[in-house]
């Protein structure tokens, strides 16, 4: 079976539309980064500091009952999240408590006033002080920067510098785009999402490398054609592969998204988004940049 055969799509002709979309997504992504550093985005408690308690009930429990029990226990400033299908409730309090260790205890004892010991189990409780949150935030930022620098160095070493730039911009774009979607959907950005972002960076790059490899190979052999033509042909040639592997990895991520449990749910969602933008960016971000940065002959030489 073959889905795509001998396609002849003029990808580079559409590059200005694509660059516009890219610019918008990246801008929102950058805005998200700014919001994160200001601490106003929806950060997980591992970055913001705070308390999270996850309770598993033996039956479905209305959220307002849980809210009522907590308020009666003297707890204010918290958010409740229902994990339907599993009878689980997540209590989040994003406040940098000066004294850690009390709030989760208070929450649990407030709930045990209302619910008997046999009807609820404390799945997990996490309390993170503001100092740790800040450290994790800086660590995560450095991780993303280190990964991108490492990638830039390797691609520059294997290809030309302009390919390196193209790949890095594309990778950056993907990370920013996924962040942007998370921000717009109001989804929580936490440590696991950052590892998903790094994973996306790696995946997107793999995809970009495959396209670049073909461009480089064809630039060497098809000297008579213009760079635009060569890039278009190359993308068309690898299009089938790009879509197929995106699809199989997407299957895995989708399986995780549906069956992997609540902790991994958003992680899988980020990966799914990443696969889509990663595939898009190899074609519509990385390649146009190579084209814009290079004059025909110079590119063809190496």
């Amino acid at each position, binding site marked *: 079976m073959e889905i795509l055969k001998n396609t002849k799509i003029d990808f580079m002709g559409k590059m200005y539309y694509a660059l516009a979309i890219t610019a918008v997504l990246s801008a929102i992504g950058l805005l998200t980064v700014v919001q994160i550093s200001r601490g106003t985005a929806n950060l997980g408690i591992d970055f913001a500091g705070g308390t999270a308690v996850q309770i598993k009930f033996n039956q479905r429990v209305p959220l307002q009952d849980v809210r009522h029990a907590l308020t009666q226990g003297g707890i204010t400033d918290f958010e409740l999240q229902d994990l339907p299908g599993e009878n689980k409730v997540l209590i989040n309090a994003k406040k940098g408590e000066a004294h850690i*260790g009390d709030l989760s205890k208070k929450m649990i004892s407030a709930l045990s006033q209302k619910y008997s010991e046999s009807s609820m189990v404390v799945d997990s409780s996490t309390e993170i002080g503001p100092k740790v949150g800040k450290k994790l935030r800086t660590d995560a930022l450095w991780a993303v920067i280190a990964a991108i620098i490492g990638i830039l160095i390797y691609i520059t070493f294997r290809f030309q510098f302009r390919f390196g730039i193209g790949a890095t911009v594309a990778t950056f774009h993907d990370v920013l785009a996924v962040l942007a979607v998370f921000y717009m959907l109001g989804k929580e950005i936490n440590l696991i999402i950052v590892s998903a972002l790094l994973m996306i960076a790696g995946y997107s790059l793999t995809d970009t490398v495959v396209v670049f490899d073909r461009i480089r190979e064809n630039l060497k052999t098809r000297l008579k054609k213009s760079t635009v033509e060569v890039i278009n042909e190359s993308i068309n040639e690898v299009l089938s592969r790009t879509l197929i592997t995106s699809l199989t990895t997407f299957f895995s991520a989708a399986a995780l998204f549906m069956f992997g449990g609540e902790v991994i749910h958003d992680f899988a969602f980020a990966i799914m988004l990443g696969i889509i933008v990663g595939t898009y960016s190899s074609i519509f971000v990385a390649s146009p940049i190579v084209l814009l940065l290079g004059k025909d002959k110079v590119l063809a030489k190496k």
Partner: protein
Amino acid sequence: MLSIIFYLPSTHLKSSLPDWLQKYGMVLGLDLQGGVHLVYEVDGDKAVDITIERIAASITNTFNDKKIEARAEKKGADIIVSPDNDMVKKTISEQFPNLSLDSTSEGRIVYKLDDKEIKRIKDSSIDQALETIRNRVDEFGVAEPTIHTQSGNEIVIQLPGIKDTKRAIDLVGKTAILEFKLLDDESPVAAQLPGSILPSEAPKIMEQFGAQIPEGDELLFGRNLNKETGVETLTVYLMKKQSLLTGEFLTEARVNIDQRYNEPYVSITFDATGARLFEQLTANNVKKRLAIILDNNVYSAPVIQEKIGGGNAQISGSFGMQEAKDLAIVLRSGSLPAPLKMLQNVTVGPSLGRDSINAGVKAGIVAALLVIVFMIVYYKVSGLIADFAMVLNILYLVGVLSAVGATLTLPGIAGIILAIGMAVDSNVLMFERMREELRLGKTPRAAIDSGYDKAFWTIFDSHVTTLIVAIVLFQFGTGPIKGFAVTLGVGVFINLFTALIGTKTVFDVISSRTEMKKLSI
């Protein structure tokens, strides 16, 4: 084959395996088997504070021993000694060489601790806290605890698999400074104090009597729990600030049962110095009340009936058996040099881990089925070969992780499942190349060879970039993320191996046995 053997210890078959094999197998991370992950900060300044307090007390004791009419008191970071005379100065410079004279005024001498000494106290407070926590965790009995320091003054404690997390946290974090102080019942303020109050009233009492407290005295509270009603009350005590004896002279702490009331109490034994101090202190203060204080909570304040020799004392209070046992543990393991400040507390119950593993297995099976079916539909026999390589890939991955005893975390499981989808990537690259070569009119045999050759560097490059990400994640990540990095990194090598060598071999074998006319791709 080897992979399966090494994986076996990770399963529930473990106990029936030979010994040499049992030491292999993946370790479940905290997020999968439950447990606690704690990060504490050791307050070095507080440790210095406590040391200064102790030195001041020890100076006064020395003066008493030598029958010198003088006293020392801690004020901020200074020790103030009065009166100012040569005898006092000489005694201090001889007995306490770590103190340096700062200034003298109005008959008072101000001493300070050397900067070098302060640094030493801070440094050693971390080592001491680490040691004490290790002792406590050992006594508590945790299978494989991890206890280490991080970024200078932080202590990380991981206790996987423990059920009673609350108890463990109480035990680890208790400062456990045991002090004996005399009650100041002679002061008129003592008579005005209410007998027992509710915990919420404590700040009010502090405010009400704050100004009247005689110099050198302090107010402390004792917690009482009424077992029938569950109501907690506080008893208010006025006592001399100076602690006459501390837990540092303790050699043993054991739980005993009071025969009369059938209540547990902790009996403690002092070393020779402690026993001498205790005998002295009881002899000098007969008929006065002596408070036994742990971390500023008064456990009891019995009247001293007579001089007590032999260095034995009892701590009784209204506590249950468990509490008494834990009290004995913290007393035996010694006090922490300073209170610990909790920075992070991640507690995972055992049921969450089980749920996560089940969910992970389910997702893995679904992912594998989807990929297998898709590959066969799209690439026919070649797809089957790729599927075979993928299964091998996952098997090797699990095998290698087991053989090196890697820690499996929830993101790690996610990494394995994503590897299912990505494992076929290399094969897809080759197959697409082969299809192109076939379209150019090459024979199947030639198409396979040139497909492999041309795809090689692409595959190599894409793996190196993933490896870079894995290394970064490993470097920066904590706990669960590290687990993800390990699966990702190991996955890269295995994938490279199965894709470049595994699948190729299968194609070679098939094409060498039969003269291929058509490639099923």
